[in-house]
């Protein structure tokens, strides 16, 4: 048996120490490449302080640790400060442990674009772990971490969690401080837990959430403990978007329908609902996210930190060459797209319109939640696919069709594993609620977890 986060809360100092040593040891001997340190062949980063180890995505600032966001552009950047979530972890007895790999600057769904190399899916190393938080999902799935933090801008926690068969929760916008999270798209980014099960997700979420004075977009509301209020017996009205489920691969579709049946027989009310064409959410997302990214990433200019092109002939060349060499293809594509949609003459046609779509998506969700507690939908149309699958950028973007509208609306969503497809790859679904109903997601998630009884069969050289 692996040690869960819940179990680790009861460990003695000595046992914790042993646990830390064992993770450290195992991580240096396996090859999923979930940790940046594994790829760099160096010992796992850890803070001196003893605590329950939590793996940290490479885009969250930990004081004195190098943070690269999987990009050459941040080569050598040693953070001088802690993200608020790191301080919150420490306050609650957890300790940052290991840096998890990710798609460059959180742009991607494969964890195949990091400067450090690729992370593989522990269920099948020929398959992607999903992304961008693929490292976090992979280390939790493979038993190389008890739990991890990821970040989700358009599905970057939920999709890798689904592909790797672990639980991933994207909190409501503003519930977890973004201070210290390297920004991709400020109005969509959220940090969240990736864990072995729903209970652990509640524990880790409790540790990191809360109002933060340093983040102006942080919600100043009363936060209650999700863990303490877990109740798997509550029954809900669950909305199903059949049209979305029908777009999935057969095995995945079947598993989702089975889960729906199980929830129904357990006493939940299932209701068919309609939302909107996912295409509008896709276009709105790629305008909003890339526009903000083009501006957010302007600070990566080689002037103060990170990579700088050697011996440029003038300032302009320093900027152009540093950024041309320092950023990968996908990042450059998105920066250019974002720059274009904000340029004068195009702003109204693109950025402004995407904001209108955002309003529409929000109102549509709000309307839907008048008649149901939760929405159940797929996380992605497929299970984990093979590396180097030939996809056009547009096809790649379609991978996110079910996840991004939740970011656009600022809603919470949780990906939960429900089974395996015929290739032995995990299947998953996600629950979505309104901002103030996160507890319902956890409660129903816990219930579903028991009903489907998903068991990971990844066996490593001795489990944690």
């Amino acid at each position: 048996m692996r040690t869960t986060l819940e179990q680790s809360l009861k460990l003695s100092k000595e046992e914790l120490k042993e646990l830390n040593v064992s993770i450290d040891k195992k991580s240096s001997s396996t090859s999923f490449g979930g940790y940046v340190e594994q790829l760099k062949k160096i010992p796992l980063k850890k803070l001196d302080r003893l605590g329950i180890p939590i793996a940290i995505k490479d885009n969250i600032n930990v004081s004195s640790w190098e943070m690269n966001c999987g990009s050459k552009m941040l080569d050598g950047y040693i953070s001088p400060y802690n993200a608020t979530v790191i301080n919150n972890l420490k306050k609650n007895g957890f300790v940052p442990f290991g840096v998890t790999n990710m798609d460059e600057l959180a742009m991607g769904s494969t964890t195949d674009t990091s400067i450090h190399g690729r992370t593989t899916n522990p269920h099948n190393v020929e398959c992607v772990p999903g992304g961008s938080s693929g490292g976090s999902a992979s280390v939790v799935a493979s038993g190389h971490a008890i739990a991890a933090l990821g970040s989700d801008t358009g599905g970057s926690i939920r999709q890798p969690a689904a592909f790797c068969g672990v639980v991933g929760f994207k909190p409501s916008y503003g519930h977890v401080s973004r201070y210290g999270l390297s920004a991709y798209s400020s109005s969509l980014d959220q940090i969240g837990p990736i864990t072995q099960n729903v209970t652990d997700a509640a524990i880790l979420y409790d540790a990191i959430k809360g109002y933060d004075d340093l983040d102006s977009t942080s919600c100043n509301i009363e936060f209650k403990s999700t863990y303490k209020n877990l109740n798997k017996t509550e029954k809900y009205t669950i909305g199903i978007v059949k049209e979305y489920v029908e777009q999935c691969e057969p095995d995945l579709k079947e598993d989702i329908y089975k889960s729906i049946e199980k929830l129904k027989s357990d006493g939940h009310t299932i209701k068919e609902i309609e939302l909107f064409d996912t295409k509008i959410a896709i276009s709105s997302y790629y305008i909003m996210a890339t526009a903000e990214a083009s501006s957010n990433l302007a600070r990566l200019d080689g002037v103060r930190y990170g990579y700088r092109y050697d011996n440029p002939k003038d300032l302009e060349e320093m900027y152009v060459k540093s950024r041309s060499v320092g950023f990968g293809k996908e990042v450059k594509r998105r920066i250019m797209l974002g720059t274009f949609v904000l340029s004068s003459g195009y702003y109204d046609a693109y950025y402004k319109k995407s904001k209108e779509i955002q309003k529409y998506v929000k109102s549509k969700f709000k309307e839907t939640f008048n008649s149901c507690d939760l929405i159940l939908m797929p996380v992605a149309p497929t299970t984990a696919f093979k590396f180097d699958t030939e996809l056009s950028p547009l096809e790649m973007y379609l991978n996110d069709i079910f996840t991004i509208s939740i970011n656009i609306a600022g809603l919470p969503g949780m990906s939960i594993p429900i089974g395996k497809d015929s290739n032995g790859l995990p299947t998953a679904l996600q629950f979505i609620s309104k901002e103030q109903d996160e507890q319902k997601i956890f409660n129903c998630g816990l219930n579903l977890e028991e009903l489907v009884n998903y068991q990971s069969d990844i066996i490593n050289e001795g489990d944690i």
Partner: protein
Amino acid sequence: MFELVIGLEVHAQLNTKTKLFCSCLTSYGSVPNKHTCPVCLGLPGALPKVNKAAVSKALKLATAIDATKNNNSIFERKNYFYPDSPVGYQISQLERPIVEFGEIKIKDKENSDKIIRINRAHLEVDAGKSTHFNGYSLIDLNRAGTPLLEIVTEPDFSNSTEVGNYLKKLQSIVRYLDIGNANMEEGSFRCDVNISIRPLGSKELFTRVEIKNMNSIKFIEKAIAYEFDRQVEAWEDNTYETQVRQETRLFNTDTLQTKSMRSKEDANDYRYFPDPDLLEITIPRNMIEESNVIPEMPDKKVERYTNEYKLNKEEAERIVQDITLNTSFEYLIEQGAKPKTALTWLVVELVGRLNKRHTNIKDSSITMETLSALISNIESKNISSSSGKVILDYLFDNEDRDIEVIIKKLNLKQINNDDLIIDILNDLIKSNPDMVNEYKAGKKKVIGSFVGQIMKKTNGQANPQRASELVLEKLK
């Protein structure tokens, strides 16, 4: 015949303790990059947070210029790359500035009142400083993130006198509000000038040229004069279309000419969009209420001085223009000095002497406490005003400051005793019969001579006014 059409954009640094979006101190002359943090260094993940004090100072200006205070104003990002702009954009306000539609009253060329309309005042961050040498550039980010209030006028100025008067007026408003030091030389009050010309009588607006970053009123006047000549010449030579383009020009302080910096075509596309890290500025009610209470503004002061203190308008304006002078003046009044006496002793006697010594009231070794003690001795007729001047000169050359002691030391106590003066006068009349005759023949000037001699014989200690009354009485 042509006339000038000028509009101004002033960047006034606000004197908040900390920067606009982080808690770093705003201070000068420190070790480079000492006052920096993850936010103003533009480190990945750092987020801005609005400094309430800056918002409150902007609102105070709104009260002073009778402008609209916009609730729900927004911050936008103005995107451009430059090494002293750490995040790659300037956080500024475009669509909904915090302050809009105000007005400032100034003097025009004929010294009549003229209203300058203020289009807007918005908050934004200052950049850092670059120093270039030997092919390298050094960046100091101490100033990066310092709050600026950009105050934009309508194109309401017709000549450089008005521009100068406006800038001085705005400086004094900023200083009286205590929202900034408005010091042009230090760069905490920078001015962009938009200039166009038009045939006299025309209401049309023609191509405007922007002259950036002017930091002296004298040079602004010179730049305006140069631009006016250049544009008029182009118009008359039929080269206006090609020579006068919408562009940014820089003023060369050596040649006193303006030179094209960049045309509109190669201007940056700043790609403004609302900063997603910051919410709309919702101003709490109590903050609005607090901002409604501001110190007495220059115009109000002039009004009060002329009405209550019976100063004439020039005197009142003289004492209001400079805030240090005004604080000194108000202190003297508070200590019981009569307005006219305070004005004379402060402006004519003290400042006059300071000017001669090429110094100013701020650096003066004579404090207002000392001047106040001197004035009170004069007003209570303890010493004569001529003795007062002697003491003032003495103060410049000596370090002791106890006026009572100095009066004794210099033996300057005024004689208000009529008997003593009458004795001296009797002697004078006796020994100068011809003067008495002259007076009787109508030469009134003689009185002055008598008083002068009395003053001389008493070492200046006689009360000259009383002496003159006594002379008149005796000679009747």
